[in-house]
Each structure stands twice: as C-alpha cells, then as structure tokens.
C-alpha cells in the first residue's frame, strides 16, 4: 500500500494537470521518493465506483467523469415558448394552403412575415421546405411536416376543418359581423375558402 501522502500528492497533481500525464511526468512534481505507480494503483481503486475515475490512455493517466454519468454533462433543457400570433397564423396558412411560398403566405395574411418567422417554425419542425415553385424567382415553398400532424393529433391534412366547420364552431365569430354575414350569404365564396379540402388530398 502506497503512503497516504504520496497518494495525495499524485492525486492533486493529476487533478490540476491540464493534460494527461505519464508516470514519469508525475514523478517530476511529486519527487523521486514517491512510488508513483503504486499511488496510481491505489487512486484507481479508491475512485472505483465513484463519479470520478482515474483512467489510463496509452501511457498517460488522467481523471475523468465516470463514463456512465457523461449524460449529465450535456443536459438538455426544454424551454417552452408560446408561438406568437403571427407565427400561428403563418403556420395555419401553410397547413391549409401548403405548399406555399413566402410571397403567397404574405398575400393571404395581408401582412409581411418577418425573416425569422419561418425559421422558428422550421426549428419547431412543424414546417419544412418542399422545393421551389417553378415561377420567376423560383421561390422556396413550404409544407407542414409529419411532426406537425403528430403534434396536433392529425392523421393527415384532410383532418383540418374546412371553413364550414369553423363557422359551425363559432370560430369565425370574433370577426366583425359584416364579414361574417358575407360568409353566411355568399355560398359561392365558401368554395374558395374551403378549397383546402381539395388541397389536402395532395398530402
């Protein structure tokens, strides 16, 4: 059994070192009278089963975090954020009208969408780009992903309610009445709005 003072010295030297050390490197610090190898052996045993372990790579020794605990060092933490109103609208447009280009989304929303908006939705893995539209400028077009369907409990885009359904559930109510009446009375317009059904078939 190595001398406790020798063990302590070797232990501290290895701990403080910025790189793995050979037995002879350690000896330079702790002095020739120390049986470094015996000390290393004692340390290796002492740390067995702890959160730290002494390991030998080639001829060099170093301390490292126990391999089975490595998962602790890279912790993922979920930061739950609420999607902004604008982002939800954009998402819904892509869901109903996709594949759509950014310009098309803007024309449907009637407002420009910020650069980051689509990034956020892509980061959330709810939309993805689906190639380019073969029109001048070849804009990227977007569709919703399988993750989107899973998240919202949909088996396909066909499950999205049409405008008639929205009306039935009163989801169009908050809008001003003139608009509302228009949907009620102009039956032919419903086809425009409800055409998402036919598009959904493409998915």
């Amino acid at each position: 059994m190595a001398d406790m003072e020798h063990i302590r010295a070797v232990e501290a030297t290895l701990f403080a070192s910025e790189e793995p050390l050979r037995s002879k490197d350690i000896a330079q610090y702790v002095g020739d009278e120390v049986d470094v190898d015996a000390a290393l052996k004692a340390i290796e045993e002492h740390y067995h089963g702890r959160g730290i372990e002494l390991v030998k790579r080639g001829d060099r020794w170093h301390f490292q975090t126990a391999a089975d605990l490595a998962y602790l060092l890279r912790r993922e933490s979920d930061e739950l954020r609420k999607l902004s109103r604008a982002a939800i609208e954009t998402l819904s447009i892509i869901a109903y009208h996709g594949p759509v280009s950014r310009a098309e989304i803007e024309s449907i929303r009637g407002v420009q969408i910020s650069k980051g908006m689509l990034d956020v939705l892509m980061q959330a893995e709810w939309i993805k780009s689906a190639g380019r539209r073969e029109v001048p400028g070849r804009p990227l077009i977007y569709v919703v992903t399988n993750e989107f369907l899973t998240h919202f409990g949909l088996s396909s885009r066909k499950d999205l309610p049409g405008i008639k359904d929205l009306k039935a559930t009163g989801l169009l109510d908050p809008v001003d009445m003139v608009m509302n009446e228009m949907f009620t009375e102009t039956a032919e317009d419903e086809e425009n709005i409800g055409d998402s059904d036919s598009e959904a078939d493409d998915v």
Partner: protein
Amino acid sequence: MHPIDDNHSNKEDVLNAETDDLIADDIWEDDAVNPDALTLNIDGWEGPLDVLLVLARNQKVDLRQISILELVRQYLKFIDDARSLKLELAADYLVMAAWLTYLKSGLLLPKDPEIDPSPEELALRLQLRLERLNAMREAGARLMARDRIGRDIFMRGAPEGLRIEKSRKYHCSYFELIQAYGQVSARTQPVMHMVKKRAVMTLEDALNRVSKMIGHSVEWTNIEVFLPTILVSEDDDYSTMLRRSALASTFMASLELARNGVLELEQKDSFEPLMIRSVANKAS
C-alpha cells in the same frame, strides 16, 4: 499646562523609551525606509498619508502610541529635504506640511479652548486615519499571502465542462391553429360589395293580389290577411324579411286602390290593425 488626554499623555515618554515592539508583519519591511532616505524618490509614495504612515511605523511602536509631534517633525524634515534637493513636490504634500505645522504649534502652545476642533482632536483624527490605512495595508498583505487559486491551489486542470443545451420547444394548441386560420380567412377575404337579391314582394304583385282578393272581402278585414299565407307561419329570416316586404307592398297597393276608389282603409288608433274593405260592397 498641556492638557492631553490619557491616550496622548504618555506619547512622548513611550517614544523616548523606544520600545522594541515591532509591528507584527514583515511583509512591508521594504517600505520601512530610513526617514532620511525618503527624499530620494518622491514618486514612490502614495501621497502624504503614505509617507506619514511609513514614518509612523518607523517609530517602531504600536500606532496607537506614536508621537504625533515626532511624526510632524519627521514629515517636515522630509519636505524640507525634498525642497533642498529641488524635487518637485505635489501640492498635497505641501498642504499636509502646512497643516502639520499648524497642528504642531497647536499641540505645543497653551491650550486655547476657543479652537475647535482642538489640536488634540486633530491629532487623534490623524492617528486614527493612520491606523486605518495601516490596517488595510496589513490586511492586503495577508490577503495576497493566502493560498490562492491558480498559484497555490488548483481547480481541475481540464474540466470536461458542463452544458445545458436549451432546446426551444414551441407551444401552440390545435384550437389556436384553427382559430388563427379562421381569422386569417375572415380578415383577408377580398371585400366584395354585392347587392343582395332580397326577398321582396313587388308593388305590382301586391296590387294584383289585393285586387283579386278584395272582391270577396265585404267586411272590414285586417290587411295582414291579404299577405301570402306561407309567410305567416314561417319564422326564418327569409320569411320574416319577405313578410315585411309584402306588408309594405300590400299597404302601398291598398293606398293605390283606395285612391282609385276600389277600397277603403280604416285604423281605429295608432298601431291598431289596419282594416280594409271593398267599396263596392259598402255601396251595395
């Protein structure tokens, strides 16, 4: 004739005794310069208080027992030496010299109760300041002499590092999604102004209808009886609208027929039922 409190009274005695009490720490021994050598390097001093502290410590006694008078004498000598060497002296050194000269005379002269604060009070104040500066100087030395991280004590040389990888998860409910689409649709439908095909009974229709029916009506009859019967029972929007249109048209038709002497109208009072009957019948 030299009223000095207990703290001060023995000062000179103590000084004369030249006790060998050394100030505990030796960290600052380098600074314990021979007072006569002080003139050699003015730049090395951190102001007059610094000079005074070093001079005081050179008295080799507890700072609580230093001789202020001796200290003043040493400081003034230091200034004089510097001047004789034509060294540039910063103003604050000279201000301190002037102040100490004043203090010295105050301490030596018979006590004048009119002087406030008293020279003794000023001397005590100076001594307290020196004590405090000295305390911090010693504390600093002890602090620096501690086992310090990176010099004596080491943290782990090559830590793996910890990282919390924040993955942003966005929250959006199904309801919010659908609602948003509803609102987008509602908001952005092109606004179309369309003249609605309204449910109406034209005046022409009413004239025909009333003309045909009035022949059979010999008694006063409520005008509403002349309306198309289907409208009476039905209660939907369409029927209500048509009913109101029919009522208005029938009324207009009645007025027109009354003008032509076909029928007559009667209303007992405001909002009472409007009654009509055939003129022909009345005549008969």
